[in-house]
Structures are given as C-alpha cells and as structure tokens.
C-alpha cells in the first residue's frame, strides 16, 4: 500500500466506526438512577413533589430529597455500575426488550456485600424503586433508588 493511500483508509475506517457507534447508541437504553434520602420529617425537593404521594404510600416517610442523580446511555448486554450514596453500587445489565418492556439484571452492592440480585422486566419509560432500609442503625438513614429505563 502506498503512503498516500493510508490516510484515506484510516479516515474511512474512523467514519465507519462512527456510523456503527452512532447506530448502536440510537438503539441503546437510557438509564436514569436517582438516589433519594427519606426521613420522617423535613422538606421535600420540588422535583419530587409530584411523586411524594406515591412515595408516601410505598415507603411511609414524609421527607424526600435527591442526593444523587445520574443518567447514562447503556449498551445492551453491557454492565454499568452507578454509584449510590453510602458506599453502595447499583449494577445494571440491560438484556433486551420484551413486549414493550426492558429486561435487565439489577444488583445492589453495599460495599462488598451483595444486598440484592434481581432480574426485572420494567415497562419502557417506567420507573421502579429500590429501598435500602438501615433500621435506624446507620446515621444517613433510609434511601430510595429510582430506576428509570427508556429505550
């Protein structure tokens, strides 16, 4: 191959890779993880006001405040780890779509101790919650992790 031809081939390869990456991301899954600190009393963040009645019914607390919010585009079958306050990690592996629902594996790790390992099928654009209850033994209190998945 001549030296003059090399840049053309490298350029073409980069363009092809970009197209493939763009196509992959178009069909990827957007995962949003929001960690919410809950308490018996105190204010509630404005962005959670609409969700407060639902939280109240499910968790039973009165104060809800966002402590961390992360949104990430995840590739199918790829492993993504989201940091959760209190030294925890939420591992998400999107596996595919089935009947307009996102099938994924979710694992919650508390430092090195696995707290939960589950396979869920969540309605596309739906939200599900994971609660971490410390039974009053930890100073940071209970936590709700909101998981939203959108294809």
């Amino acid at each position, binding site marked *: 191959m001549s030296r003059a031809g090399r840049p053309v081939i490298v350029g073409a390869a980069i363009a092809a890779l970009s197209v493939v990456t763009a196509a992959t991301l178009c069909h990827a899954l957007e995962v949003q993880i929001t960690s919410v600190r809950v308490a018996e009393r105190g204010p509630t963040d404005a962005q959670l006001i609409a969700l407060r009645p639902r939280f109240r019914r499910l968790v039973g607390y009165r104060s809800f405040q966002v402590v961390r919010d992360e949104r990430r585009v995840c590739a199918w079958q790829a492993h993504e780890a989201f940091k959760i306050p209190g030294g925890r990690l939420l591992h998400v592996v999107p596996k595919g779509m089935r009947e307009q*629902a996102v099938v994924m594996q979710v694992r919650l790790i508390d430092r090195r101790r696995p707290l939960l390992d589950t396979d869920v099928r969540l309605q596309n654009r739906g939200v599900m919650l994971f609660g971490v209850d410390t039974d009053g033994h930890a100073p940071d209190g209970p936590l*709700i992790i909101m998981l939203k998945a959108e294809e």
Partner: protein
Amino acid sequence: MTCGDVAQMLDDFVDAELPTSQLLAVARHAGSCPSCDLAVRELSALHDAIERSAREEVDALDLGGVWPAVSDGITRVEARRRWTRRLRAAPAWGVGLAAAASAAFWLLAPAPELPRIASPRKNQAVIERIDSGGARFELRRERKYGTTLIMVSADGDAVAR
C-alpha cells in the same frame, strides 16, 4: 397419357377433382394398364377406409348434453333481463327507501365487541428472579401506576425470608 402422367394426377383423379376430359383419359389409361389400375384401386381403398373411420368417430360423438346447457343459459339470461326490467319499472322513492333502510341498519347495528386486553400500567414491573443473599427484603406495589418497590434491609442482619 403415360403411366407417369397418371401417377401425377392420381390423387386428384381419386378425389374426382380433375376436369371431365382428364378424368376420362386417366380412366381409359388405367383400363388398359394393369399397374396404373392397381394404383388407382389401392388409393381408392385407402380413401374409403379413411372416410369410414372419420364417419364412425363423428357418429360416436355424444352431443346430447349440448342443447340442455344452451337452454339453461338462455333461461338465466332471460331471468336477469326480467329483474332489470322490474327494477327499471320500480319507483325511484322505493329504491331510495331501501337504500336508506340499509344505511340505517348499518349505522345503528351494534359494533362487534372486541376482546379487551388490559394495557400494562405505566410503571409495571415484573420480577422474574430475586436473590437477596440472605438479607431481609420486602416487595411492595402501588396500585395506580403499578410502581414496584423492593425494600431491602442493609443493617447487617441476615434474616430468613
């Protein structure tokens, strides 16, 4: 007339397609020439055999079903013409009334009921597998949106589920 002339005119002679003078000439030559006479007799016998065979095949044809079929066709066409004549003779208001009745029946008839399929709720989640490694957990579900909460205890106690 020579034997060669007869051989050329033999087919036309047997089919009687020659002018009268030539027919007589060939007949006279065949009467005095045994080989041409034999050729004429053989060809005549062949023609007779073919004609007989064709006649037998025609006789064997069954045309008995043709006329009833034609008759049925005529009857159908006549019936159709009778209906057309009746419709043309019918008053316009009668035709309009019939059309209006059909339209009313079509519009007012209840639509067939489709089977109802329950649409999934906005946040519906199906837990296909769950493992808490011995830690206590609780599954809660909210009715309105179908929001699911998996509450897990992180206090270090491994409580049997």
